[in-house]
């Protein structure tokens, strides 16, 4: 399933992500565990906590990130 479908305050493990250099540099990579911190209305971004920092990811990118939900 895609990162965009995960509910707020749930955690997931990234399985597959598009080849965007900046995503990796921001610390998003396969196998890491992230938490959804907020979802914005009007097609806005989701906020994901990676390690100790939050990153805003646009809907278009988040939809292409495949994840597995964990609880």
């Amino acid at each position: 399933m895609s990162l965009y479908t995960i509910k707020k305050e749930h955690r997931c493990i990234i399985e597959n992500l598009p080849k965007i250099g900046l995503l990796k540099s921001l610390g998003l990579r396969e196998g890491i565990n992230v938490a959804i911190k907020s979802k914005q209305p009007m097609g806005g971004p989701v906020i994901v906590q990676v390690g100790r920092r939050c990153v805003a990811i646009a809907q278009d990118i988040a939809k292409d990130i495949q994840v597995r939900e964990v609880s």
Partner: protein
Amino acid sequence: MDCHNNSPEVQVGKDTLKFLLMGNPNVGKSVVFSKLTGVEVLAANYTGTTVGYTKGKIRNLKKDGILIDVPGTYGLEATSEAEEVAVSFVKEGADAIICVLDATNLERNLNFALQLKKFDIPMVFVLNLVDVAEQQGVIIDTEALSKELRAPVIPTVAVRNVGLRDLLSEMEKVEKREKEVCYTAEKELLEEEESRWKEIGRIVEKVQTLEEREPSFIEKLGYASMQPWPGIPLAIIVLVVVLGFVVGGGKAIRGALLLPFVFNVYEPAMTAFVGSFIAEGTIIYNVLVGDYGVLIKIIEWPFALVLPYITLFYIALSTLEDSGYLPRIGVLMDGALRKIGVQGGSIVPFIMGYGCAIPAILGSKAATTHKERVIVASLVSLAVPCTAQTAAFFVLLGDESIWMLVGVYGLSILAMIVGGGVLNRMLPGKVDPMLLEIPNLLKPDLKTVAQKIKIRVKHYLVEAQVPMALGILFAAIIAETGLIHGISDFLSPVVTGWLGLPGEAGLALMLGIVRRELAVLPLLDMNLTSLQIFTGATVALFYLPCLSVLAILIKEFKLKTGLAIAGTTLVAAFVIGGVINQTVRFISSIL
């Protein structure tokens, strides 16, 4: 590829050590730079504060050395113009790299550090923000880290000068290198990705201990401010408080302090002084102290009218910048902003544009596509009034009615929506979707903020005064010599016929070429009707960006684009102003 081509303007001796200050965005590089060189550069709590580079001579170093403040970058594949600058610097080589690490986010910072290490340039690591890390319960063993990185690691709190002396003594150990080696195996870097993250995991495991802590109030606030609820109401409250502070505060300072001084003390004294050796009623007398008297206006306009608002605005802006709150507004507004072709992160240059368009246009370099940059720069030039002009509006409109002020700002926002929508469709290419790091919410450091306010107010005082003075002198001369009548006649089809303003208002249009507030201030003393005030303000709002902004536009986007932006603003000013005037007149004639 030639990687040793030093940029021509660098004037360094043969023995001068060259240090690059590098690291991820928003880790405190610019603060370290200012402290080590004494050169004032702006620092702020979000990604992409530094977009060009600054060089400075290092003070208190026993050797001769220069330091270069480089824009922050997440990796060595540049994703924006600002990051390209950074990457080209490493490739150029240096005697040492000072790599600044954010102690609150060690993993990601190490990812960049390990990539930099491949360049075979000696490195000194600065572990900054240890104060914030400590509050968050993150403890890092610097000695162990230093062993892992095989290079010195200096813990610092740059804003409070902690650790900078140790950094200097490490820097003194650096030797001038014979040959600058450059690294070209970029492919290798990408292939190593996986093993690099493993390595990072191992290092972090070894050097970092986390203590479980209850999130502090400020961390909770940081979290709440990026939720639609309560984030959006909070943003509105912040906006209202800032406006109240600037508008109310400015009005109070002006009314209680500055205007009485100008009109009761300064003006009579100056008039008497000039009158003591120049006969009253002569042209020279009038140019100096008459209706547009240079000696009066040059104090009244920039100091009594504009300066209080500028100062208060920069107090608010600088505080907000250092708090890390602005990118959170960007997140909340991303959905809406995308419709006008910009992403949430670009809210920062827009907000800066309410200060001055120049840093806003330069700041747009952090945008990831050229298209987005052009949209931001165009909209800021068209519809965002700078503080000086805002101050002039507050005086012109605020004294008339608060609703007029609301009306003009509403028009400005409407123009951004329409203009952005059009540009987004018209310009080729796509705007990247948002991908932005949200900084920690921090309590701004008082000294750092005060320093920043000082830099900006000083900038206004230095940069604005000469054009302002020349503009006022020019106005005084043409008004007092009667030349104004000729000009009014010439411009009257537009100014009087179409815009419905008195002939003298042509003066505002002429001065407005020089500075934005000068398109407004001359209207103050013309006894205009409400409609005329509103029309005049509308024209001034959209009218040409000031000369310095035009110069920056041309420099950043080439002549054609620069002139196209300026031309559009000019046309928009006359069309919108005229339509408002004609419509209101038409409606009131049939009522």
